[in-house]
């Protein structure tokens, strides 16, 4: 018996691993879902999410969310930290690819009619995932604190602020004051690394759970 078998048996005796894993392993997936590359888009978005989590944790080790330090710390990541430039560029490209993949995934679901009964609620969760993903992008855009980040956020929050009724509150909550400043940067940082990750983890959990319960709509 190899070491792997011994460890597996030890855990299996205590936690009934076999009974837990068997239904997952044997769960049938429709054949055309496996052969058609259009069904990869959701998985691609999820891979990008995982890459974003890992590279994001590394970036958070060096990033400093204050107006005086933010730009310098990103510059430090890009020029001095070993592999820093690669990690930040990966974060950048994975973010853009994730949004593209999420959108294409949604377009595929729409044209294949995969949102129909009984999957209505999973579509709704999906729209909230799209919203969360784009909000991730919006909040992350400000963090390098360069000219483009600052002015694009100024216009973006201005647009959000002119939505009737709720706009004023949204703008106040986002900016933490009347204009972009130190408060805004720490808020965007907190939103980007604390609030949104929790939100997306919950939504992804629901999304996958529903797919697991209802199965993939395997129709071409």
């Amino acid at each position, binding site marked *: 018996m190899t070491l792997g078998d011994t460890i597996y048996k030890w855990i299996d005796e205590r936690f009934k691993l076999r009974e837990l894993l068997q239904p997952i392993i044997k*769960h*049938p997936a429709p054949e055309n879902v496996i052969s058609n590359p259009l069904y990869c888009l959701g998985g*691609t978005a999820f*891979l990008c999410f995982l890459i974003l989590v890992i590279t994001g944790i590394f970036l958070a080790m060096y990033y400093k969310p204050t107006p005086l330090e933010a730009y310098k710390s990103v510059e430090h990541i890009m020029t001095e930290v070993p592999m820093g430039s690669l990690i930040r560029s990966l974060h950048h*490209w994975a973010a853009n690819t994730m949004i593209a993949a999420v959108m294409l995934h949604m377009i595929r679901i729409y044209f294949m009619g995969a949102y129909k009964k009984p999957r209505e609620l999973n579509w709704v969760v999906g729209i909230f995932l799209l919203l969360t993903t*784009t909000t991730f992008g919006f909040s992350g855009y400000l963090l390098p604190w360069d000219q483009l980040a600052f002015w694009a956020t100024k216009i973006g929050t201005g647009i959000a602020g002119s939505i009737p009724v709720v706009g004023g509150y949204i703008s106040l909550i986002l900016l933490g004051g009347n204009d972009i400043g130190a408060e805004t940067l720490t808020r965007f940082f907190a939103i980007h690394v604390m609030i949104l990750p929790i939100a997306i983890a919950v939504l992804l959990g629901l999304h996958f759970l529903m797919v697991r319960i209802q199965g993939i709509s395997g129709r071409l």
Partner: protein
Amino acid sequence: MAIAENKKYGEEEKKTEPVRVRGLPFFPHFVLREVVVMCIVAGFLLILASVYPASLLKPADPFDTPSPIYPEWYFLYVFGFLKFWIYDVGPIPAKIIGVTLPMVLWYGLLILVPFIDRNPSTDIRTRKVAVTLGIIALLGVLYFTY
């Protein structure tokens, strides 16, 4: 607890299996496909990140407005629509419509899609209205993005 759940699953599978299209087990078939795609995407991202590193412009200066300010590409359609819509409707100013329509109404409409489209068919040939509306929406977003 776990045993009870598994038994329930077993029963469900028996009931639904004959209706299903041909199915292959999740592991290894489905997982293998997923891993292959993930490797390709990860490699693609590594190449992109090495060839085109993320940019960093001059530090933010609240007193110096740069000339072309552009948002991320996935918000361009909001900008495009805001520029396009210059018509006041009654007492509502054009700017409010230009902001509300692509953000609030668009997402509201997206959320309601499964409740508006009650046609149970998933066959593309019997969903002409939904497909046409989908293509129009897609072209519209692309147009305003551009």
